[in-house]
């Protein structure tokens, strides 16, 4: 009876204070945030003593594994990382249980070689992408940043959670606040993972967090080599020689303006968007204005929901149908892009998100076929999937991303 009362009293305390709450490297006996060789040795011995000889050591198996990890990968020192929100976080242990609210962060984790077994829960959109994230099918679904299942997140006892840094900030801030209040010691990382300007740095930081700097460097270089190829190839084109591009969003006559991610990619690829100066990121345009602007290239975004193409389906016919519907629009036969056959359909899977460099490569190739004769976006895409994502996906027979391709 007495034991039971003690148990009832102690249990809530155990739940309230998870192991990770106690900051500091396990085994760091003098608490100076450096795990020396002798401290590490002492910790291992004390653990063995406790397990096999009935000694009084207070480190468990996870602690010892974490100590070994920190000693080997981080020279026995805590890891200090500044995320994209500018917050500096200190990691005393390796990540064991990760929750991602951002599919882009999840994808980047996979790119830099994170053991996906350690991801315990993902957002609902990644959960639904069964072809691209097959391993997420049996992971927990924690909803989206707009309607997060906080109970589930907290009950999974993650030691790190990934959120967006600069979009939906109020929703992400709120999730972060609630997590930090309910789970002391939790590390909330804020990374975007879809912006060309910050992505390379984010790749390296995420690789550092998971102690895979080599893989991170390799992937960041691969990403940078593609983007720099495009940037260098278009840098010296004067404004009046740039290709005029009309980019259309999912909805008819909804285009993109300065400030939107798609416009940034058009600009990197050397395109000139006649509607870049409109207000708002996705302005709706008078159909007449498109004819008057007479674009030289037209790019239409496909992928309403998950119903056409992308990783989910191999249906080039559907993309072809979208293209032919564009050509049939009244008066479009007089637009240069239509006359020259330079109307393209691209799926949002490779133009938004972490794979924007693949889509941008396609844009560059479409805008300046001569300048980028050697650029092979499909090969880049395939290499990304096979080498960095490690998924068995053959672009020749699976998925539909561009048309004509």
């Amino acid at each position, binding site marked *: 009876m007495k034991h039971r009362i003690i148990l009832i009293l102690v249990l809530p305390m155990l739940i309230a204070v998870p192991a990770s709450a106690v900051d500091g490297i396990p085994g760091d006996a003098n608490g100076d945030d450096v795990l020396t060789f002798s401290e590490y040795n002492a910790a291992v011995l004390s653990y063995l003593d406790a397990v096999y000889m009935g000694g009084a050591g207070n480190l468990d198996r996870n602690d010892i594994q974490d100590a070994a990890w920190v000693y080997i990968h981080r020279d026995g020192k805590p890891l200090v990382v500044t995320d994209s929100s500018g917050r500096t976080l200190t990691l005393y242990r390796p990540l064991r249980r990760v929750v991602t609210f951002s599919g882009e962060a999840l994808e980047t984790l996979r790119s830099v070689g994170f053991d996906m077994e350690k991801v315990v829960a993902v957002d609902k*959109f990644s959960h639904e992408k069964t072809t691209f994230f097959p391993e997420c099918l049996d992971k927990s679904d924690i909803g989206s940043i707009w*309607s997060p299942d906080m109970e589930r997140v907290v009950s999974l006892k993650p030691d790190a959670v990934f959120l967006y840094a600069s979009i939906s900030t109020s929703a992400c801030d709120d999730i972060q606040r609630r997590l930090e209040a309910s789970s002391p010691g939790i590390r909330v990382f804020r990374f975007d993972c879809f912006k060309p300007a910050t992505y390379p740095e984010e790749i390296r930081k995420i690789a550092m967090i998971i102690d895979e700097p080599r893989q991170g460097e390799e992937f960041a270089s691969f990403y940078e080599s593609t983007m720099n190829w495009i940037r260098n190839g278009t840098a010296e084109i004067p404004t009046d020689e740039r290709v005029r591009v009309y980019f259309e969003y*999912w*909805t*008819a*006559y*909804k285009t993109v303006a300065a400030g939107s991610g798609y416009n940034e990619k058009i600009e990197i690829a050397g395109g000139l968007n006649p*509607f870049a100066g*409109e*207000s*708002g990121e996705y*302005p*709706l*345009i*008078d*159909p*007449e*204005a498109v*004819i*008057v602007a007479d674009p030289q290239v037209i790019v239409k975004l*496909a*992928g*309403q*929901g*998950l*119903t*056409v193409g992308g990783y989910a389906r191999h249906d080039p016919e*559907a993309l072809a*149908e*979208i293209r032919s*519907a564009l050509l049939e629009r*009244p*008066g479009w036969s*007089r637009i240069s892009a239509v006359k020259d056959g330079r109307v393209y359909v691209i799926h*949002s899977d490779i133009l938004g998100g972490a794979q924007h460099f693949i889509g941008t490569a396609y844009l560059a190739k479409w805008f300046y076929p001569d300048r980028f004769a050697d650029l092979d976006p499909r090969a880049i895409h395939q290499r990304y999937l096979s080498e960095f994502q490690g998924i068995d996906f053959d672009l020749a027979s699976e998925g539909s991303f561009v048309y004509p391709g």
Partner: protein
Amino acid sequence: MEQYISLYEGYARLKRTRAAFILALTFGLVLLIGIAVTLGSADLGIGKSYLAILAGLFPGTFSAPDLAITIVWDYRLHRVLFAVCAGFGLAVAGSVMQGILRNPLASPFTLGIASAAATGASIAIVLGAGVAGGEYLIIGNAFLFALLAAFGIYGMARYRGIGSETMVLAGIALMYLFSAVTSLLQYVGSSEQLQAVVFWMFGSVDKSTWPKLGIVALVLACTVPYLIYRAWDLNALAEGDEVAAGLGVPVERSMTVMMLIASLITAVIICFTGTIGFIGLVAPHITRMVIGSDFRTLLPASGLTGALLLLAADSIARSILAPQVIPVGIVTAFLGVPFFIYLFLHRRDA
């Protein structure tokens, strides 16, 4: 005798007011159509725009640049006429509903017909097939659900014994139900789908085409003359079911037929435009404040008011931030509400 003369004179004056109002509206509408066809991002100017119209009508006699003809005929004309028809239809449907239900708040929106259409469209957008053929799926679904709501209201009202209060109440209940379904769909949908639904619910005449204009015009041509022909029944019904019955109007049948016609008009229009709010509610009120509530003139006059209001709103929507287009539903409210309040404050007696 004197009293008879003053009554006669009063009626004559009212008739004059009505004639003047309708004349002014017609004139205003024609003028606005004339202006609207010259508005657009392609800077055609008045001369070229009209030349293009004439060249399209009489290809042999007149000639205009190909580009101008394409822009005017393929983009502007049907849009302008569609705005006229849609505004006309929504306003007529609104007056009929307000008249039958003797409720100033009755309109396709407060009766749940518009929210039903939005639900239908959302189902098509969120759960339906892809972009290819998607447009017709959305239109069909919106139409079907709008009619479903109309029959639903009618069925409920009939079950409880038909009465104007019952119908309004049933309509409001349905509106909440359909709004909830739409919200649920938005909740489960992806962010792109969510955007498409929100966009649909803004309402706009962007998606107008000649065939769509043809359908709406045909429905109006078939229904509006009948409604005007039965205007006396509406006048009688407005005095109360008992009065109408006393005057020999088959109350229940008239209400049913008229409600269904009004619903049909609404459904046909909003399945193409999305929820253009407000016209159906405010145009009849504005008209009634000016010329009174005799349905013989109220119906065509509020139709003209609605047409004028929607066309004006659309012209502003596509020229104020050109080449950007603002959803017309937003402009309608900005334009209609102040005007409505002005009339309301200055003509309290009406």
